[in-house]
């Protein structure tokens, strides 16, 4: 039972990472603060990190 719950929570974390990737993607294209070009780059690689986790690469 605990193992099952652990497994569910484990997958929930991947879903959470995926959700944050979506939030990040939305902010990359439209955001209130730090609108500069430099932060477009920062957003891009942070999104990449979340995606690598979501697809189970790292």
């Amino acid at each position: 039972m605990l193992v099952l719950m652990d497994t569910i929570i484990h997958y929930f974390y991947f879903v959470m990472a995926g959700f944050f990737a979506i939030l990040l993607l939305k902010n990359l294209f439209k955001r209130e603060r730090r609108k500069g070009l430099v932060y477009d780059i920062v957003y891009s690689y942070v999104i990449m990190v979340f995606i690598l986790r979501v697809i189970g690469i790292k």
Partner: protein
Amino acid sequence: MYLQTTIIAIIMVATFALASWKLKSPEISMVITAIVGALVGGFGFPSRLLVEGMFTYFDVGMIFLTASIFINIYSETGAMNALVRWIVKQFYDRKWLMLILLGILMIIPGALTGAGSVSIFVVGGLVASVMNYMGFTKRRVAAFIYLFAMLAAVSPPINLWAMLMAAQANMPYVGFNVVLLVPIVIIALFTIIYTGTSKTPERKNKEHILSELPLPPEGMNWFKIITPFAVLLVLILISKFAAFSIPVLGLPLTFVICAFVSAMMDRKRWDVRKWFGVMVKTMDQVFPLLATVISVGALVNIMTATGVRGLLAITFITLPMVLIYITALLFAPFAQGALSYGSAIILGTPIIFLFNSIGLNVTVTAAALSFLFPLGDCLPPSRIVGRLTVETVGYEGSYMSFLKAIAIPWLFMGAIGLLMLIFPNQLDFLVVY
């Protein structure tokens, strides 16, 4: 190897300075520095090392995000304003009591989780706005919040630096409670006095403040104000004290649950668009921190690969004892600024072994170091807690002026830590529980 590594280190420092100045983004500067370091170090374009490093503090980033989402949703329900209103009403004329209570409030989340940033995320906004209304200057508010965030991180039961050093040195994390709490109380009192005795010329009268504060939304009550925090506290306590009866939740999920509970307290609880909007805004707000923890990992990974990390560590630990004491207040905080909790493992553990080998009490030594490391949370390159404080307080001056604002209590804490480091055997009576 010394010369070569020193050259790489210098080039990396120069790159970081130049990039920070030109690009105005410490996050990307760290990544650029990492890339330059790898190129100079002969690693080519370090795609694997770069990305691998970015995962080092991935979980920390998740904690930042979820904690902020929780607290922003909580604020959105109006509960935060109601709480501030109540505190001002009750404590307007009892400044000292209020400062003590705010201090304790600040310490709890960090003490339970080991992260000062969590304290700021969870109660920092509340404390800042109460203090603002009470007329304290932004400088004092910033100092108060930053200091208590550090103390929260150091405070038992969870002191991550001590735990990491203990883990690396194969010593049990036992006997730290009193030896941490006594200095914490001293530093906390100093900070409270430092804050409380400052002038508050622009302090408005009570009625004025209450009229400025937005009225709580209809239906707001104590149950709604308390429940989300109560859930947080309960989840954290059962994770610690009933760990074998529940699955591992992790802090991110804990905060998500609390966020959900908060949202359920709202009248328009199923307004998904509203909550989504809050989360998008939260992401915008905490993005610099998230980006910092992601980027600093990449930098640390390259510092390690090129041997720069090793150079820093070997330089510090092979200093004569006297110089270790003299430079501890420099090395330890800067290591924290660059390596975050890695500082404990890289500088802390060798110091533990070194001190042990000359018969000094290692528990006091580890405790002492755990007072010195957090001082670096306001220092570059990462300066995570420092920036978080600036954001939370809404501090408007330059970052340098923020550092000046926190300098006095910062130095006081450093002095206490240093004294503990110098006299561990005289303080070993504190290692009781």
